[in-house]
């Protein structure tokens, strides 16, 4: 008979997560009780307030680090804090995109094209559930990278995934596509998490422990059955690689990115990637580090394939959102090189890259929400031609983000690429350096093509126009643009900060 030890919780450290969850619950209550009119505004307010509050509380505890916050099941350390911080900041700026009601269906339950839907549109109904859903997802994302036992990891994964499945299906226009995206995301996500769970099982079987620390010591001890470890690492990786969208587990992302409401896509592409990579870094750095000779070749291979595949396919895309999706696949490849680096500089550069990339991504999708015609967003690239003439500033901002993706100097992307590749090379993998550089060259090809479309082609007169950005969207785009260039020109403060605090507590 095992006697029950009452858990001791360090609420100060847990606060950031708890606050977000609390905000989410509050949101649900509002859905239940508040009058329909006031919901939108109050929900937005609560969401923002929650996130900001959570950020503040995170900053308050930034230099504490402990693995005992919740009985070993979550560990707060520099790296974790940084990742959580990035997630929060990215979420805040992408929430502004959510606020733009054009993005979401009026009544999720209504049939596409039914009178019901038309009525709901006329009444100008709005699904305000998106806010609590988002908060839940964010909570999951924040938990994911700090979880240090497999249960919490799994729960966090589901908590961040389930709301996203739903959000993906709530687009206002092209609802069939949106719902299809939701279905695909859900089925494949569940499929992947099944693998994930199986991985958990095997790791547990290997180490007879569910905590990272336990697994780590088991790996060192080498007592367990290596087959289990092998299967465990493989299955866990499947789950994680699926989330980050690495080849060949990437297939969902282009479809989902395209189908989902652009605001949600932004959140997925940016925040989810950060969270997933956070978790991946932690489990590989903390638990599997000593077994690196087993998994590293495989992960390197996947990284290379991912870079090249993403870049190549992106060239052939005709749709902005799909193009960005594939480019994000390519970036997943670059980020994986941070994972395989398995060094302090690898960790630091990954965190910087994640943050920079996330910000730029949100900004880019923010721009996408602006280019519309009567039937909603225009994502067909050919109809983007001449954007630079119509609305120079929006086009310039987008160009800026693209240059950042391409890694042109004086944008954040360049610093990120430089640091992450040098980290990978430092840890001795020349292949990643060469392939990374070459695929960046390929990638440049399509980023530039978009710039050419926007600036050097004449506008097509087919009603495509750039709507006057709502104040929210403006904030999003401006903030991301400024951040992107600031981090490109003078990244020192951030880098120093990351260097000083980025470390995993084992």
């Amino acid at each position, binding site marked *: 008979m095992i006697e029950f030890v009452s858990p001791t919780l360090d609420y100060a450290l847990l606060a950031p997560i708890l606050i977000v969850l609390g905000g989410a619950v509050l949101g649900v209550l509002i859905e239940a009780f508040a009058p329909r009119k006031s919901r939108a505004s109050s929900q937005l307010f609560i969401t923002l307030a929650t996130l900001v509050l959570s950020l503040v509380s995170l900053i308050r505890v930034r230099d504490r680090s402990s693995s005992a916050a919740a009985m070993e099941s979550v560990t707060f350390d520099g790296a974790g804090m940084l990742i959580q911080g990035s997630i929060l900041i990215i979420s805040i700026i992408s929430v502004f995109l959510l606020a733009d009601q054009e993005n979401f269906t009026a009544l999720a339950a209504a049939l596409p094209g039914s009178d019901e839907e038309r009525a709901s549109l006329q009444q100008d109904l709005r699904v305000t559930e998106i806010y609590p859903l988002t908060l839940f997802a964010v909570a999951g994302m924040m938990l994911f990278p700090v979880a240090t036992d497999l249960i919490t990891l799994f729960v966090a994964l589901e908590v961040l995934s389930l709301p996203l499945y739903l959000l993906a299906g709530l687009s206002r226009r092209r609802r069939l596509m949106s719902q299809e995206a939701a*279905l*695909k995301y859900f*089925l*494949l996500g569940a*499929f*992947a998490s099944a*693998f994930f769970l199986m991985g958990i099982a095997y790791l547990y079987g290997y180490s007879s422990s569910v905590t990272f620390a336990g697994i780590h010591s088991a790996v060192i001890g080498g007592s367990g059955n*290596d087959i289990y470890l*092998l*299967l465990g*690492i*493989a*299955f866990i*990786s*499947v789950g994680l*690689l*699926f989330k980050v969208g690495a*080849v*060949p*587990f990437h*297939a*969902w992302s*282009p*479809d989902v990115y395209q189908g989902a409401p652009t605001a949600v896509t932004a959140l997925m592409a940016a925040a989810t990637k950060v969270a997933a990579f956070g978790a991946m870094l932690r489990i590989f750095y903390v638990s599997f580090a000593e077994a690196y*000779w*087993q*998994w590293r*070749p*495989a992960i390197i*291979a*996947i990284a290379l394939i991912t870079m090249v*595949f993403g870049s*190549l*396919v*992106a*060239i*052939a*895309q005709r749709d902005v959102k799909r193009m960005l999706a594939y480019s994000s696949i390519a970036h997943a490849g670059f980020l994986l090189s941070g994972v395989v680096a398995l060094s302090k500089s690898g960790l630091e550069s990954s965190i910087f890259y994640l943050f920079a990339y996330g910000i730029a991504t949100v900004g880019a999708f923010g721009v996408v929400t602006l280019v519309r015609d009567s039937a909603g967003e225009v994502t067909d690239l050919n109809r983007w031609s001449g954007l630079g003439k119509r609305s120079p500033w929006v086009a310039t901002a987008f160009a800026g983000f693209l240059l950042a993706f391409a890694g042109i100097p004086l944008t954040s992307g360049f610093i990120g690429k430089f640091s992450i590749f040098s980290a990978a090379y430092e840890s001795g993998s020349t292949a990643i350096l060469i392939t990374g550089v070459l695929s960046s060259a*390929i990638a440049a*090809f399509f980023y530039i093509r978009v710039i050419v479309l926007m600036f050097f082609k004449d506008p097509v007169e087919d009603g495509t126009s750039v709507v006057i950005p709502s104040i929210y969207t403006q904030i999003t785009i401006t903030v991301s643009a400024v951040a992107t260039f600031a981090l490109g020109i003078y990244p020192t403060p951030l880098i120093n900060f990351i260097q000083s605090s980025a470390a995993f507590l084992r």
Partner: protein
Amino acid sequence: MATNNGLVYLIALPLFGALALLLLGRKADKWGHLLATAMSAGSFAVGLIQLSQMLDREAELRPVTQKLFTWISVGSFNVDASLLLDQLSICFVLLITGVGTLIHIYSISYMSHDKDRRRFFAYLNLFIAAMLLLVLGDSYLNLYVGWEGVGLASYLLIGFWNQKPAYATASKKAFVMNRIGDMGLSFAIMIAFATLGTVSFSGVKEHSHHASEAAMTAIGVMLLVAAVGKSAQFPLQAWLGDAMAGPTPVSALIHAATMVTAGVYLIVRSNFVFDAAPTAQLLVVIVGAITLLFGAIIGMAKDDIKKALAASTMSQIGYMILASGLGPAGYAFAIMHLLTHGFFKAGMFLGAGSVMHGMNDEVNMRKYGGLRKFMPITFVTFGLGYLAIIGVPPFAGFYSKDMIIETALNAGGAKGIILGSVTLLGAAITAFYMTRVMILTFTSPKRWDDNQHPHESPALMWIPMVILSIGSVISGYLLYRGKAFKHWLEPLFEEHGEHTELLPPIVVSGLALTMVAIGVAIAVIKYQLSEIDNVAPEKVSIFTRIARRDLLQDDVNEALFMRPGQAITSALVKIDDSVVDGAVRGVGKMALGSGSALRETQTGFVRSYAVLILIGAAALIAAIWVVTT
């Protein structure tokens, strides 16, 4: 060596003239030609002063230099912009400025109807300046500047009427063929620097003794290439004929008296190189001999008076080159012939110009005839020039050419025999074609139709002709008397003892004169005593035809260089687009293609995605498995 700060004015005056006329533009139209003439004359005056000073000094003290400024100085490669005036260059200075001034004067009237006269005089002054720099530079690199400078001037002057496409082409041809020569000169300079570490005349001279013969030969051959290009010697002679496109005074000054003789100057100036490189020297002689006959033969076939004279120039320069290839024995005579030739050939060209002036620019001698009566002065001056060139004593040509023939014969052995006979044969042919020119133009019955009104040229034109003709009468004797000229130049060369005399001079002169007599006789029989029709006869021997086509020189060049060149060019243009750039475009296409191919993996079916994941998982397990075990 003594320095003399006056030298720069020799060049500065005409250079100033050129710049002033070019920069002021139309403003200077009124007085431009006067300024230019004044500048040229001034330069001549300076030259005379320098000469008088030089005469006062001891033989070995005569050379003077002037350092203007440091031009290029990198590592051990140091070249000053500095001038050297010695017994050799002074001759050229006086020839250039003297004849030059006369031709300026002549041109004032000759070009009076041309609205671009100012530009013409600017070019003339530019040429004078460049040519002076050529002969005054104290190092091969300074010489190079003048060398290409005169090339530029001649390009501009040949193409002076470049609105006529043919003329424009002629000027281009001249420049390009000269460039080939210039290439030789730059090779020579490079070799000199690489082997001797210096490019100045004095430097090379002093090293010439202990440098390897191979190096000296290389330098010598390259210098010869340069000379060949500039002096229209075989095989780079083709441009001279076309160069007659330029106004006649230009032909007189540049393409008869001065520029084309620069090659001779270069070889004589580089005597120390050739003395140390017998092989190169032999080549020089051969080139000279070939060209001598080559030009002479062409000369026999030409009906265009200027082209005939041009051919004769080519042949006469052949004489000089040949002489300069004979070593110390010949240098002096080469220069001597150069000077006398300067007088009589310039004079004859001016005569030709005056004839054309009187015949509405008709150049075909078959449309002349009997002009003796209509332009007596021209006839007389041209006639004196004629006597000079064919070498009738006591006219200038006799002395200079006779010396060359003599030296050639005395070159010793088979070489001597061959060269001697070549030069003698040349003398005969020269006599023939020059007589032909005289007859066709002046003494034969008239063949021009009546809308022609031949008339004597104005004084401004015939005065220079007269002066030059005087020169062509007396200059030879003056230079010959008591071997004056030989002694004048001697300090510059290293005498290698006396040569064996194959034949006594008097016999040689006799031989020469007989050859000349034969030539003249044939010409008289063939033209004076027989009917000449005013169009070139068609039914002529293959040889004549070939001679008329300049011994196929252009055909050869086209076949050997032009067409292949064009072929290469067009081929490369294609290659650049299809292969080089094509490869680049190909890479782009490849990327795009593979992109669209991979794109197809995204079928849109959930189940296929699931399959991908499954495969991925399996692969992952396999990979880790492989590594682990």
